[in-house]
């Protein structure tokens, strides 16, 4: 229960972070420049999106061992 509550709180934290960082007005701050030949708006959006997913994966998969789930892989 303790663990599950902590996970829930972390996921809500990720939600808030994603909602703030990936929406205007924060998003619009990155409009217009360039990063490694890619428009900064896109570079920023996809980077933060990817980090958000990494965060989700860490919270959802990391905090407990699930041996029964390990071999349940792709076809």
């Amino acid at each position: 229960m303790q663990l599950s509550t902590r996970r829930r709180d972390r996921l809500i934290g990720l939600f808030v972070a994603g909602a703030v960082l990936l929406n205007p007005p924060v998003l619009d701050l990155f409009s217009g420049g360039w990063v490694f030949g890619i428009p900064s708006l896109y570079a920023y959006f996809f980077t933060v999106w990817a980090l958000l997913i990494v965060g989700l994966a860490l919270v959802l998969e990391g905090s407990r061992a699930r041996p029964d789930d390990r071999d349940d892989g792709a076809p």
Partner: protein
Amino acid sequence: MNTALVVAASLVYLGLLFAVAYFVEHGGRGSARLSRSSIVYTLSLAVYCSSWTFAGGIGRASQSGIDFLPTYLGPTLAFCLGFVLIRKVLRVSRANRITSIADLIGARFGKSTGLAALVTVIAVVGMVPYLALQLKSISSGLDVLAAGAPLVDVTSIPVLADGAFWAAVVLTVFAMLFGSRSLHPDEHHPGMVVAVALESILKLVALTAVGVFVCFGLFHGVGDLFARGAANPAIAGLYTHGGVGRGIDWLAMTALAAAAILCLPRQFQVMVVENVEERHLDRALWLFPLYLLAINLFVLPIAVAGRLTMPVGADPDSLVLTVPLAAGAPWLALIAFLGGLSASASMVVVEATALSLMVCNDVVMPALLRWRSLGLAERPDLTRLLLWIRRIAMIGVMALGYLYMRWDSQRYALVSIGLMSFVAVAQFAPAIVGGLFWRGASKAGAVAGISAGFAVWLYTEFLPSLAQSGSLPPAFVEHGLFGLSWLRPYALFGLNGLDPVTHGFFWTMLANLGAFIGVSLLARQSAIERAQAALFVDAFRFDAAAQIWRRTAHLPDLVTLAARFLGRERADAAFAAWGRERGVDAAKTVHADAELVLFGERLLAGVVGAASARVLVGSVVQEEPLGVDEVMRLLDETSRLIQANRQLEEKSRELEAATSNLQAANARLQVLDRLKDDFVATVNHELRTPLTSIRTFSEILRNHPDLPLGERQEFLRVVVAESERLTRLINQLLDLSKIEADGTAARPLAPLDVAAVAADCAASMRQVFATNRVALSLAIGSEPAWTMGDRDRLVQVVVNLLANAAKFSPPGEGRVTLAVSAEADAVEIAVADNGPGVPAAEREIVFERFRQGGDPLTDKPGGVGLGLAICQRIVAQHGGRIWVEDAPDGGALFRVRLLRTAARAEPLAAAE
């Protein structure tokens, strides 16, 4: 490109998909593993990316840049909350066997048939444009591959020559094969799920292939592509975002997509209904956003390349096909087409399955069941009827989609149509989320909210779309209904400057939320609503539905009812499984209690929906009327109840422990009581026997004064002997009661030598042994064995043991051994004989009063039965232990163990 080739490739591809689905449904090797995998589950969720993503997203990106992304940001953010929200939907749906979004809302708000039907109607109306969009996408894809560009006006060609028509026919057949081949109580379609997962892989591969080709085949990498785009000011605008109006549109789009991922019927189907294990969700919660990210990675590059390479005015929604075609890569275009076909086909099949389920379970079946003259409720087997209703519903839904596509969708981009559908289904979001987390959400509120939202949607989204295509007079869009300018559908109450979708979303949500919350706050909930509300809101803590519905039924009725909708075998198997789980034989049970009735209802709910199931079960159960007050009392204090329940459990555990202690004590008391009775009876008997003979012989002496002297002497001898026996008995009884009454501190203990005591006793008993012709041998060590004790008492113990041994040893060949041995901290006296011994079962009871070997009343070896009891108590007073075991040569061996003290160790005690 040859149309026949494209059509053939598409049919082969669809055939392959069906083969895979068939393989999985029929349990081919490894198929169970496949359909129970979290990866397949995640990929099936990607049915979200319909042809709208595939073609429409690129079209949108080529027109307004990053605006295509909120549609995927919304689901990502929604999935961040999925651990709380989606898991709860899953849990509730599984517990209540909910199989569609209409069922979910209907069940939450008091198993309401009307509400479920309303949701179904809205879902169908809302999804028709969306289905049309898929057909349009397929048909324009075919046109592009055949002619290089989509046809401008499909209405000019006959229906039978229209590619979209045939696409609709093929996909309908496909949907019927996948989604309504047989009835499952849980509505699992593993074949369909695996096929959808495969399609999701192809979608991703195809779009990525086109993207890689564009970036590295047509241009020198992504940087080059973007840089060339930047040189054109019209394209450079795609790289930026900003402005208050666009910000609001963006936020609205994100919220809309987040609501849609929960509310789209096909999403509910794959995410909730087809979910095999709850833990798969944990993985999907991050893997699905990853899929969305991957499939969107190349959308902008393809869009920019399209703008750069295609002439101005080319159809933006076809860029994914026209760019490879124009670049001379027709095979890539074909792969892209198959990717788009996958996107459309999976969406259509799952959506049609989900919608047909809703139409059948929440509109048609309830209506048919109420139509009494049809006699449906009496028909023995309804499974085929159910399947046909679903198939016809699929055909109907697809027909509507085709008609809409043919006559209405031409003027719209794919994305606009899709978003319109999103706004329609988003009307369910307040009722679902509110229903899951707010116990006060009432049926009246849900009906009001959904109706109000839907009405506003019709006015601000759907009717204008009809008007724009010419099906309705366009005047009301321009000037407002009745010429009232504040009623203009795209600028309601003068709200200008927003995208029509944002505008519609805002007003529908305002109306929906306002009515939902307002009416819920004002309206009173009925008993069943309260019950369902508590079940849903407290889904993680509480499953006590059976306690709320006090319904009973005749089990055969219930099974027959289930059999009519599931088929006899499935119904029997389900009830038998239920019985096994609870250790009851379902076949022998006649009376179905509340829990079993609930099980039957949920079983039916899986097939016909919660509302219909309730009506059906209602026909065979006796239900105790349930008052509002009662439900309030039962449920409004759920949390307090749970708290109290926990305390009660603790208390009851304590009580159980106390009870078992009491029971043990009681059993002991009963034994003691019986022993006391035995004791009184025995004492009575023991006292009476000598008294009777004394009295008898005395009377003879009195009444017959002329008895010969010898006889008189003999009688007097008996009287004296019996008197002595009586005296002995009374003395022993007194002794015993004195020992028992005195307790441990009876007399001062003094150091004494057990060896000496034993030797004295043996000496004093010689005569007795001689009389009984029993040999007594001593094994007493020469060194003294000191203990603290009362000499007289210990003598009594040893004498008693020796007397017993003499008594039980066979005269003539009896051998008794008295041994005293000293150990480090103990002194042991052992008396062994070669008599009959003491059976193992009696080794405890020989130490009780009047308990001699055998029956105390009939089998009299000559004692009074108090000797051992006295010994036991004396030894206990000395802190020692006495027990009996088998002697080496078959008789009894009594052992007395006393504490040993050092010689004369305690002069103080000795002085006393």
